[in-house]
């Protein structure tokens, strides 16, 4: 049997199929302005027996395709357990939100916290800031890495941070150090959420931001915990959805 999982996020859509317990296909697309249209195109021609949707666009997909859905919390929890079976803590930093999920030793979610009030502390924040500084988002982490010292950015709100960055640039601060400061601002938020919800043990780090080498390295330093990143980290939710589709079939709700 082939089961599929589709994670319709605000920035990107990931779709994964699983055959005999192994990932058999990965597809990705940008969400754009028409999430359902994009999702439809993404699964076009894909072979699967069951599909389960997650992510913020899941309910639209549910209506369109008459499938079941699960929240991204449950999907990320399941995905994380697939990649790292004994893990109890999950940190996900995606395009539009970040979350921390605490699991018990049978992989069940027992507590979670989400930050989705504003872009601060998310992939979107870093993306906008990279643009403001004239860096590419793909190498933004490396730019932060080569900075000589830590710089502190006090504003976490995207709007204020942007003007703070502009004035730092005007003051002649080094752009790499500003980049690092912005990364540290995101990290500070993530770490305090992580410490509040699951203070101990290795952490599975998922979502697009987990591709950022500086964030991963500093996260380990700041928390003194092992940071485990599924490869690629952004498919974790879709993998979780596909697995739950396989385990529970269509009746899952």
């Amino acid at each position, binding site marked *: 049997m082939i089961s599929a999982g589709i994670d319709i996020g605000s920035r990107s859509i990931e779709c994964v199929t699983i055959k005999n317990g192994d990932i058999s296909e990965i597809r990705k697309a940008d969400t754009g302005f028409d999430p359902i249209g994009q999702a439809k195109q993404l699964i076009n021609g894909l072979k699967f027996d069951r599909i389960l949707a997650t992510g913020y666009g899941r309910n639209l997909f549910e209506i369109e395709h008459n499938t079941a859905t699960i*929240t991204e919390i449950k999907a990320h929890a399941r995905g994380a357990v697939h990649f790292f079976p004994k893990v109890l803590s999950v940190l996900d930093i995606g395009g539009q939100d970040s979350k921390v999920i605490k699991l018990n030793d049978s992989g069940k*979610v027992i*507590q*979670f916290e*989400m930050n989705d009030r504003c872009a601060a502390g998310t992939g979107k924040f870093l993306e906008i800031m990279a643009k403001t500084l004239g860096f590419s988002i793909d190498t933004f982490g490396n730019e932060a890495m080569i900075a000589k010292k830590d710089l502190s950015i006090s504003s976490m709100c995207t709007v204020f941070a942007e003007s703070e960055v502009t004035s730092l640039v005007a003051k002649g601060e080094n752009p790499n150090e500003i980049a690092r400061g912005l990364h540290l601002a995101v990290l500070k938020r993530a770490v305090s959420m992580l410490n509040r919800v699951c203070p101990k043990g290795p952490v599975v780090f998922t979502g697009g931001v987990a591709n950022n080498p500086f964030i991963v390295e500093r996260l380990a330093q700041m928390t003194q915990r092992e940071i485990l990143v599924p490869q690629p980290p952004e498919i974790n939710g879709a993998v979780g959805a596909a697995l739950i589709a396989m385990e529970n079939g269509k009746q899952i709700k």
Partner: protein
Amino acid sequence: MKQQLLKKLQQNAELNINDIEEHKRKGNHAIGFYCLYAPTELAVAAGAIPLPLCGTRHDPIEVAEETLPRNLCPLIKSSYGFAVSDTCPFFRFSDIIVADTTCDGKKKMFELMSDIKPVHVLQLPQQQNFDLFLEPWKNEILNLKTVIEDMTGNQITREKITSAIELLNRERKAKKRLMDITKATPSPLTGMELVEILFKTGFFADKQKGIDLIDEIIDVCNTLIKNGDTPYKIDTPRILLTGVPIGLGSDKVVKIIEESGANVVAFENCSGYKQTFQIDETKEPFLALAEQYLSIPCSVMSPNQGRIDLLDEMISQFSIDGVVDLTWQACHTYNIEAVQVQKFVNDNCKLPYLHIETDYSESDTEQLRVRIEAFLEMI
């Protein structure tokens, strides 16, 4: 049958406005209340209608923000907005406002409100230590008695206060019976229906009318239970909502929980089960009032062990599967107390717990939905 009754409730609520108008035309009074701590018995004993004024709608918030800071609890902004914009008939009917020094935001808002209408502020102690605070609190109640007597020209005699206590005890008993209906598994009532019934019966000029209507609703619900007539299944998750008060217009969390497939069967807040206390009818009436009202377990009290005790009792009596703790944005007391509530629910009751901080607007509906659905997946 249930729908008919809800319609009847709505009709009665509309007629009730006429009743209050009639009452006022005859030269009688109405008194506005904002908080559960103020004994409405005093109004009833003086022949005045007590009206609950607590703002539960989003619309007046914009006007309120012309004066009040944005970063303030929506309940306070809504209450003030209704007052300044003169859009709440019950506020208009009120000859005087009885306020309490509960949280900082409310207390300071009442100072501004006193420019619009006479406001009498009760100094509410912030601790339930009877040795220290019962006497001053009782004196506050006696002062209020004088204020109301002077305004209405009616003496609050021992008989009158005793019979007001007896009447409102009966009303609270009826409300308790109503709220206990949802102890049935599955419940015949949705949480949204319960909110609506409690909210609308709160304004009745004629308390007996309200009690009779509640009794009628209870009878119908008992028949529904007997016939197994319910919108729910035996395994529908049963949720307890705790925290800040809610009402029509500020019930979005209940709505989302029930749209996501669960049933809110219990409300541990001052718009719900906290209203079910009884005043001791065997004691000196003012002492009994002072004791019972001071014992209300709201987060403005420090410490507030009574809330944990009430939660404990309700969680087992209502066979609760999960607890949602609601905090209005910028409400510090409930927000901080959430830490203790979470610990109690997780560690002592071994139940899933979700803390939600939000306001009256609809802007975060989808974000709340994810949290609530994920919470229900934990059950």
